[in-house]
């Protein structure tokens, strides 16, 4: 879907981005991860031509983006800014309707779409005629997201969209983000310097340093097959938590069924097999369940396990990874 080839950007002598190449498949969520100043924002802005590259090519849907007018290109790409960039002189409704207005949608269609998005983002209609400065940071961020999504672009670029939020709000928005069906249809490139966020939301992570991509792979790849010591050290600090996030249930071998039988009064939740081990822990911790029913749609089977069984499966998987 998006193909970046030998892309470079030099600001005078500073090589902000240095010959990077990567690819994002349709409906995939790519994370650009790295420390401050490593060139993430510059990379992202070259994709919607807010910054013109010094060298290299970018293709979206196999079309060279430099052969289109920048305005047309941008209207087909959603963009969420780090500090939201909402228009202070527009109401929430008007802010969301900017791109439809540019695309000359009729009024009814715009209104319907705005209402639909507000609902999906859990904001009531009361907010429609409110100005951005009357909203909380989290609400503003959601409006920023709605604005980017409104014309249903195939591609979404997000620059540290949750950077300014506190931890509690951020994990709440993460959850909403993952649940939003609209986003599942999109090809997303998201910038962050937060490793946890990268592991939680990314299908695929490019770890950058000084304008170069150090490693490009799935969260598990980075964690269990670090290319060099930089990658290893970058992930070292919160390793266990990351492992929980990197490993998905369907990667585990099915645990052996233990002695415990389903007793009366036991609480059982259903869970999809493509979630991370982290969500499993959340179910045990916050919902107080005794056992989980794992529904594996891909292989068309269902199995169940309790906390101890799942934990031992997790450690077994880890052991395998390191032996390989």
């Amino acid at each position, binding site marked *: 879907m998006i193909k970046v080839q030998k892309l470079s950007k030099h600001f005078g002598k500073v090589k902000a981005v240095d010959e990077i190449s990567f690819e994002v498949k349709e409906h995939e969520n790519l994370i650009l991860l790295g420390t401050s100043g490593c060139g993430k924002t510059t990379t992202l802005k070259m994709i919607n031509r807010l910054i013109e590259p010094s060298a290299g090519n970018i293709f979206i849907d196999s079309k060279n983006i430099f052969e289109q007018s920048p305005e047309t290109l941008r209207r087909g790409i959603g963009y969420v800014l780090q500090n939201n960039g909402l*228009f202070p002189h527009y109401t929430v409704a008007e802010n969301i309707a*900017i791109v439809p207005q540019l695309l000359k949608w009729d009024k009814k269609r715009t209104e319907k779409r705005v209402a639909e998005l507000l609902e999906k983002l859990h904001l009531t209609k009361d907010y429609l005629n409110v100005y951005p400065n009357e909203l909380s940071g989290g609400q503003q961020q959601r409006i920023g997201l709605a604005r980017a999504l409104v014309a249903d672009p195939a591609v979404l670029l997000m620059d540290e969209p949750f950077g300014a939020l506190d931890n509690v709000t951020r994990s709440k928005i993460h959850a909403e983000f993952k649940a939003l069906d609209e986003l599942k249809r999109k090809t997303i490139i998201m910038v962050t310097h937060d490793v946890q966020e990268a592991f939680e939301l990314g299908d695929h992570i490019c770890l950058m340093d000084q304008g170069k991509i150090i490693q490009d792979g799935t969260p598990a790849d980075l964690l269990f097959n670090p290319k060099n010591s930089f990658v290893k050290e970058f992930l070292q600090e919160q390793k266990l938590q990351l492992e929980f996030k990197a490993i998905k249930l369907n990667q585990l071998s099915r645990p052996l069924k233990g002695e415990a039988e389903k007793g009366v009064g036991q609480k059982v939740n259903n869970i999809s097999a493509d979630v991370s081990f982290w969500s499993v822990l959340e179910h045990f911790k916050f919902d107080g369940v005794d056992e989980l029913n794992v529904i594996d749609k891909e292989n068309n089977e269902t199995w169940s396990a309790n906390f101890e069984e799942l934990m031992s499966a997790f450690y077994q998987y880890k052991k395998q990874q390191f032996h390989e």
Partner: protein
Amino acid sequence: MNEQQQTLWEFMQQQSDKLLTQTLQHIGLTFVSLFIAVLIGLPLGIFITRKKNFSGPVLGIASILQTVPSIALLGFMIPLLGIGAKPAIVALLLYALLPIIRNTYTGITGVDAAVKEAATAMGMSKWQILFKVELPLAMPVIFAGIRTATVITVGVATLASYIAAGGLGEFIFGGISLNNTNMILAGAIPAALLAIIFDFLLSRLHKLNIKKLRTVTIDLPLLLLVLSSLYFIPSAYGTKLKAGFTPEFMGRQDGNLGLISKYGLKIQTLVINDAVMYKAAYEKQLDVISGYSTDGRLKAYDLVVLDDDKKIFPPYYAAPIVRENSLKKFALLEKILNLLAGKINDSTMTALNYKTDYLHQSPERVAKDFLVANKLWKPARNGNDGIVRIGSKIFGEQYILASIYSMLIKGYTNYDTSTKTGLGGTKICFDALTNDQIDFYPEYTGTGLLAILQPSPKTIDSLTHSKDETYNYVQKEFEKKYKIKWLKPIGFNNAYALMMRKKQAKGLNIKTISNLKRYLDR
């Protein structure tokens, strides 16, 4: 106080027609200028946000324009645009430009970069960003600039009357030169009120919320246009020739009022400041002007004085006036001062004034050259027999006369001199004389009569047609009242006069004011 207010009120009622016209002219003038200033300043302000290289020079030039004294700026305009509305509007808009350009620039550059980036990223074109994002967000700052510009313009617009563009300045400056407080206030109070009202109204706009501001942004140009249309050039009647008179001349019996009543002169008249009037005549913007018959500019601009054949302008013959005590103390003084009697006629005085005012020669040099040429000059003697104190009013002609007298005294006697030049106007100079601060100074018969003695109008009327009767009267009265002696007249008459370009007067064969009237009536 109460009486004063009453009379002001009466004055305003009596002059309500004029007051209304002037106020409307003032508002119109302000808003025409403002409207054009916005039309120029706003795009220019936007331009320099795009081409930052130009921002320094553009803002710099606008700032410099604002420091140019208004009267000088108006003066520069005359050769380019003549007199009247055009140069006034251009000068006013130049003053209004800086706050508008500057605030547009700071307003737009102050728009949050993230908001602009968001607009770009959503696919807005440059123009869409300008009109939908930058201008609306910069609007409060731009309004503040327009507000400042309005207040400046209302103030400076009073000066428009200097170059015959009308407005409340006519009352203000007329009142100042006629020493008529009511007239000053009748102009100054409405001008101040206008500034306060416009400032208040615009500050209200400023506080409106963003939504309403959008409609205002559309309505404001319309409003400006309507207010601008209030300005029209009052041309009650057009005549073959055009006159420009100073506000002072306009209001005096021995000025324009006399021209109308005694000569029946009917001429299209503009009110204009003395500083630019001569030049305007030279530039053929005006044909007839009021002036002083010995003014150096008469020569500089090649003008000719029309003969006042019905003698409506009182004679202003110059003569030294001396304390009688001083004449006793300095026995030789009277004889020495009379050396100059009859030596300087109108055109000689005009030429001397021309040398100081236009060639910028020092009064001392002009005085010495004059004495040498007339074989009166002698080198200074020892100066041991006491000091004669010479006074002079604060203008060139008096400086020259004071210098001449000083040189004569030093050359012909053993007295020394001290000159107290620049004693302000008549009142200060005369008070200095009566209080024994100076021994003598050159005074004019008309001033002695009208400003110092101030007899009844009837007496004045009976005297002023004759130069000798006026001289005899002031001589007698000064002696009686103040123990001050008028010595022999120097010769020239620095009176009010109507003047025209030499060439035109000759071409039309106009030599006297009656000639002028006949020509106009033909």
